[in-house]
């Protein structure tokens, strides 16, 4: 088993949190994991890009140029990475911030377009957008399911925000639901 994903957006969209959840959940299943967030100037630019690789054997490169999946929470991230997507890969695009017409992927890429911000606001908290995205991602993922995420979410969300966990879990479920609907 080998799977790699790029998650991208601007600071504050909560990408670090969901990518960390994926990494830790995979570790719990004794899978090999590499986790590479952006650093330095890129960070200063307000961008967050994370590369996560999961495998059942030794992982080579932690940086990737043809990911199994791309989670693009904004237009800048989409435009930077979408041309890396190859046949059979997955794109989850946040069409709240991405004009549909900007999505240009090779055929054979499974594109999920979701107005994630609206979905989050509908759930009463715009901050839940990242968790909804995570839900869309985990749905149908070969090596992780809702319970795996649930198992580690507590270790990722800072203590002072513990009370938000139930809502976050609901948001993940909502994401799964949306993804199901789109498939």
């Amino acid at each position, binding site marked *: 088993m080998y799977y790699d994903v790029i998650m991208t957006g601007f600071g504050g*969209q909560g990408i670090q949190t969901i990518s960390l959840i994926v990494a830790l959940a995979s570790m719990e299943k004794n899978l090999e994991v590499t986790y590479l967030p952006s650093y330095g100037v890129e960070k200063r630019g307000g961008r967050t890009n994370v590369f996560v690789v999961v495998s059942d054997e030794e992982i080579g490169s932690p940086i990737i140029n043809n990911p199994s999946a791309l989670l693009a929470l904004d237009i800048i991230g989409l435009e930077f990475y979408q041309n890396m997507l190859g046949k059979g890969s997955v794109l989850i695009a946040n069409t709240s911030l991405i004009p549909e017409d900007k999505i240009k992927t090779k055929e054979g890429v499974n594109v999920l377009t979701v107005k994630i911000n609206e979905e989050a606001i509908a759930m009463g908290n715009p901050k839940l957008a990242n968790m909804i995205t995570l839900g869309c991602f985990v749905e149908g993922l070969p090596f992780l399911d809702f319970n795996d995420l649930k198992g580690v979410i507590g270790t990722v969300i800072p203590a002072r925000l513990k009370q938000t966990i139930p809502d976050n879990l609901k948001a993940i479920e909502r994401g799964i639901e949306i993804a199901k609907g789109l498939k």
Partner: protein
Amino acid sequence: MAHITIDADRCKGCYFCIKFCPKQLIVVSDKHNRVGYFPAQFSEGGDDLCTACKTCALMCPDTAIEVFK
């Protein structure tokens, strides 16, 4: 009878202009710009009150503001 223009995509939402406009003519927009910031915007009808004192422009770190008179 004066006014300012704010380049929404240059604006990074530091709100110095809002803090220092002696006439409180600048407010926060409710939709974020391309980069994800919620830019400042000149209030409706601010033209009547704006004195073109340039304080906003003086403090803007991103030269997003132009002043007209």
